[in-house]
């Protein structure tokens, strides 16, 4: 609410893509970061397709062992550092200021430089492909001593380390700006307990980013020093310390890659049910409990090291059942009694909840050390986290895309093409990741370029590879949908779905300072629904 008159930092001062990259408008930053993340999603997906080609049969030798190791390292790194996490932050960067009625974000120049640093990190990491030794190849968590310079020599692994460091710095800056925006830029009347559900999921996510990503920055800086000749991660303590530090980031990030997509799905369900999200207060409490717990479960990645207190981490990890259960309760509470419209955004949101459930329930399973002794580092784990990140978060992401595309572009995405997209994606996802549970249970290790010819393994892997192809087709259908919908625009207007939250109370796309009309009174976490309900009540009283 600054009243100082000074020229707006406007993107129009520099025309073209340079101006766009330099824009301090949160919508532009969010959109740029989202589009870059989407590009990295396609890149990471291409790597996955190459891996699935390699694994279609026990020993195809489609690529060399060396290339395969680079592929799975860069696939995981690309998806986590350059797609799911930054996309979660990009969604927040675009939507949260609108949802809390802010005209601008706090610290916009820091936000835009955060985007640049993150993007530079992505470019640096991928540039490893151009080096003689190839890209990073020590896995996305790059355990020492494998990732030191004697075991994994080469510039590519250096670039990977630097790339992760830069990406983590960039995302920390972005998250800090979002946190400051939520703290200081809420519109009058927008108390913390009136923030919309998506804004809350973003809020807890950026809290975790600010609390845990700096640890990754330090871990990577020290790894870089180690690779340059310093002795940092020395002896067995060094090995365990690295893992503790890495997973202190590496588990919270899992929830950063989950909450905002949960927020997308929740908003899509509430709006398509014509009902506000059920159990708001319990949901907020569960979010806080969830993020607190998720900062204290990290060593469940280390049950088989003999270097951690398994019982403690089994306890915190299993406790996640409680907040997760609350979310499902609230989701069903929202559906029951609603007036449901089965739009594509709704279908993706339901797909998110149902498929994520498989990831979540298998997560409770592997939170038990005795069960994890078998599952750890096997395809069971690969199945588990792909059910959370792909079958879950990516479906939540698409729910958000179909829900907010009209707000961002002013045009609808095609519903009919969207249904094809959804069906193909659901079939492909379950074909790809379902059989992995069986393979892992039967003893297939992750990160192997070839596997033994045990009975059934070739068939199950072939099903997975075909599924991956179907996913690729589904993504192509989505891109086609975007292309058609932008080319032959069906104008959506400002509030096509009868939204609940403030972003629907402005034009589509929103103007530079978000709101040109006065904001409606902010009476709850669903202010527009309040307005409609009050109007209906008044009409009822008058008649």
């Amino acid at each position: 609410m600054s009243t100082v008159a000074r020229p707006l930092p406007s993107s129009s001062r520099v025309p073209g893509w340079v101006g766009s990259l330099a824009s301090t408008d949160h919508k532009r930053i969010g959109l740029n970061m989202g589009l870059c993340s989407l590009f990295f999603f396609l890149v990471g997906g291409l790597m996955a397709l190459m891996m699935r080609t390699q694994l279609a049969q026990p020993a195809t030798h489609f690529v060399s062992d060396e290339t395969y190791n680079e592929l799975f390292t860069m696939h995981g790194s690309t998806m986590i550092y350059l797609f799911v996490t930054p996309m979660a932050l990009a969604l927040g960067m675009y939507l949260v200021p609108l949802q809390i009625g802010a005209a601008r974000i706090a610290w916009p120049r820091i936000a835009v430089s955060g985007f640049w640093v993150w993007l530079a990190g992505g470019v640096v990491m991928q540039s490893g492909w151009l080096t003689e030794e190839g890209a990073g190849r020590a896995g996305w968590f790059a355990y020492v001593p494998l990732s030191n310079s004697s075991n994994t020599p080469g510039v590519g692994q250096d670039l990977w380390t630097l790339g992760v460091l830069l990406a983590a710095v960039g995302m920390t800056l972005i998250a800090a700006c979002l946190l400051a925006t939520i703290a200081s830029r809420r519109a009058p009347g927008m108390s913390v307990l009136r923030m919309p559900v998506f804004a809350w999921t973003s809020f807890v996510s950026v809290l975790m980013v600010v609390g845990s990503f700096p640890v990754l920055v330090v871990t990577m800086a020290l790894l870089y020093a180690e690779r340059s000749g310093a002795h940092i991660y020395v002896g067995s303590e060094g090995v365990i310390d690295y893992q503790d530090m890495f997973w202190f980031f590496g588990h919270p990030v899992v929830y950063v890659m989950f909450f905002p997509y949960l927020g997308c799905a929740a908003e899509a369900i509430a709006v398509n049910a014509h009902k506000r999200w059920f159990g708001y207060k319990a949901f907020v409490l569960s979010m806080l409990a969830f993020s607190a717990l998720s900062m204290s479960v990290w060593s469940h990645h280390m049950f088989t090291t003999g270097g951690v207190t398994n019982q403690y981490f089994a306890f915190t990890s299993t406790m996640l059942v409680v907040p997760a259960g609350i979310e499902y309760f609230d989701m069903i509470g929202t559906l029951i009694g609603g007036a449901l419209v089965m739009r594509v955004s709704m279908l993706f949101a339901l797909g998110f909840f149902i498929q994520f459930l498989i990831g979540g329930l298998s997560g409770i399973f592997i939170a038990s050390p005795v069960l994890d002794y078998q599952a750890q580092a096997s395809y069971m784990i690969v199945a588990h986290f792909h059910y959370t990140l792909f079958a879950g978060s990516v479906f939540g992401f698409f729910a958000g895309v179909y829900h907010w595309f009209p707000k961002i572009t002013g045009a609808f995405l095609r519903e009919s093409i969207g249904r094809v997209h959804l069906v193909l994606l659901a079939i492909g996802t379950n074909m790809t990741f379902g059989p992995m549970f069986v393979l892992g249970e039967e003893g297939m290790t992750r990160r192997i370029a070839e596997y033994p010819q045990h009975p059934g393994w070739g068939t199950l892997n072939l099903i997975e590879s075909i599924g991956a192809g179907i996913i690729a087709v589904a993504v192509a259908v989505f891109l086609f949908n975007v292309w058609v919908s932008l080319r032959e625009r069906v104008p959506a207007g400002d509030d096509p779905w009868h939204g609940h939250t403030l972003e629907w109370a402005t034009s589509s796309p929103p103007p530079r300072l978000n709101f040109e009309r006065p904001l409606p009174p902010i009476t709850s976490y669903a202010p527009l629904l309040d307005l409609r309900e009050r109007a209906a009540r008044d009409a009822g009283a008058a008649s």
Partner: protein
Amino acid sequence: MTAGALVFSHADETLALVVTRTEYKRLFDIYVPIAIGVFVVIVALVLFAVLRFRRRPAERAARRHENNPLEATYALVLLGVVVFLLYLTFRAEHRVDAVAAEERPQLEVNVTGAKWEWHFNYPGYGINRYSGTVGHEALVVPVDEAIRFRLVSLDVIHELWVPELRYKHDLIPGYPQAMTLTFPQRGTFSGECAEFCGLYHSRMIFTVDAVSPSEFRAWTRSEAAMAHASEPAPAGADRSLADRSRS
């Protein structure tokens, strides 16, 4: 001493007769049905809601958006489930860890992991076996005996996994650890390195031949005889392992 260990391990049911595989299965058989049950209930509720409440006019949507007493009760039920699962897990883990830490085994095997091979050394018999990129010699073990594996890595983190046993453990350089395992039945099982260890990780595999105790003793005698007869390739391989760890 050997007889004592035998008596001990067969008499104390909570220790040597506890097999990792059985513990895993017992927990699996509780966790998985619960998970499937929860999945079915939630999918059924979603389907019910979708079929029952779709295509209604927006005005008919319920206004009720909170039921905190119900939610709190539900959270307590969830907490009960957590306590139940943790109770089972801690009990099973106590047994598995107690067995893994059992220090009066009937057989000791030194396991050395190095890129990308396994070296199994039987100190009581002077036998060495190698598997991975160097060859495919099986790890021969007697069934129903507590076997102490001493785990050492020479370079990066490796991980000993015999899926049939439902148990694996890391080999961390500079951090020698040991675990006691029991093979409950005869047969040939696959074993592998589970932790990614670099270029030929996928080839760091071995097989386990679990044989009867008498067959095992006979095997150790014939191996010892062979070792005396011809001075061996294993010594050469042994040197290569040691060389690589120094470089």
